[in-house]
């Protein structure tokens, strides 16, 4: 029997007018298919963002040191803050450059967070880097004033450390042609959780035994890794990775 009742749910489901389940939460399905490494939070300087943006053909997506840039953390001074009803816009000056930032005020807590920030204040922000109409902006998730000014130096040192780590990953990747080098295998041993916790480093005899290679062959690889700056001798004949 034909029903003359108007079925609202059927009329709107997938009709293109109402948000369906897929469109309500596009991010979860989008991100779940992505590698976790590709979503890493990167500490960056504005100069790094600018350089990557200039050299990128695709102005909506930038790659820094071989890593897709999505979420970033920056430290700098707030300038030109302009508060509106729905959002607040400002420029972040980290001393290496200036970048436009925007924060949407969706809840009362967002407005309270933003009210405490004024021009000239040092802040740490977390946000999503977005290229739009040939411009890079940061869509800010969180914004807080610095209480400890040592965080400025620590942020920039972290930028250097992460840059070094990501460029070294690329460097070692170029050399192995799909096959692991002895240097990679030594690094893998040093990066084992049990070895990372050894402040004194791992004795060379133990590394040689685990790899099943003679000591003189191991020492060649260790010499290369030390020259690359990937490992160091913690105490006599004990070695430790710089990232462990």
């Amino acid at each position, binding site marked *: 029997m034909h029903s003359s009742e108007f079925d609202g749910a059927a009329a709107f489901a997938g009709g293109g007018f109402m948000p369906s389940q897929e469109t309500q939460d596009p991010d979860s399905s989008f991100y779940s298919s992505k590698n976790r490494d590709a979503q890493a939070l990167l500490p960056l*300087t*504005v*100069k*790094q*963002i*600018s*350089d990557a*943006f200039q050299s990128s053909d695709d102005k909506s997506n930038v790659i820094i040191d071989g890593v897709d840039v999505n979420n970033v953390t920056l430290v700098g*001074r707030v300038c030109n803050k302009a508060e509106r009803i729905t959002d607040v816009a400002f*420029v972040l000056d980290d*001393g*290496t*450059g*200036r*970048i*436009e930032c925007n924060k949407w005020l969706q809840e009362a807590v967002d407005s309270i967070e933003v009210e405490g920030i004024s021009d*000239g204040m*040092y802040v740490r922000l977390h946000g999503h880097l977005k290229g739009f109409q040939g*411009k*890079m902006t940061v869509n800010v998730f969180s914004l807080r004033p610095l209480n400890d*000014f*040592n965080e*400025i*130096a*620590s942020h*920039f*040192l972290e*930028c*250097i450390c992460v*840059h070094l780590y990501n460029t070294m990953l690329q460097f070692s990747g170029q050399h192995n042609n799909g096959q692991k080098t002895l240097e990679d295998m030594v690094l893998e041993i040093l990066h084992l959780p049990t070895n990372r916790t050894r402040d004194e480093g791992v004795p060379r005899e133990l590394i040689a035994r685990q790899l099943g290679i003679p000591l003189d062959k191991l020492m060649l690889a260790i010499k290369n890794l030390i020259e690359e700056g990937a490992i160091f001798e913690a105490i006599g004949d004990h070695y430790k990775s710089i990232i462990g």
Partner: protein
Amino acid sequence: MDMSNPAAFVNGELLPNYIGKRVRAVVQVLQSDGAVTIGKSTDDRQLTVRGLPQVPPMNYVEVTGIAENNQLINAEIWTDFGKKFDINSNNMLCRLANGEFKSLFL
């Protein structure tokens, strides 16, 4: 993005490389009369800063401004970092930001 006016991280040793340019340095205030401030850089060299308001002695102040000569900065912006500050990490950052990793900063 505006990359036209960066401020280089400097200590006392690196300041002479940026005469006429914009720099940022942390100084510990030794003497301040409201016009000229005499302070110590994070690598323990004496620096003079013009244009700072009166700052309590021994406080660390970050100054951003133009390097006028080997020892003098004309302050444009300043931030009082208080009495507790790790000069060693700042000094190390100045060296790294002007050395091997300069491309990340300037």
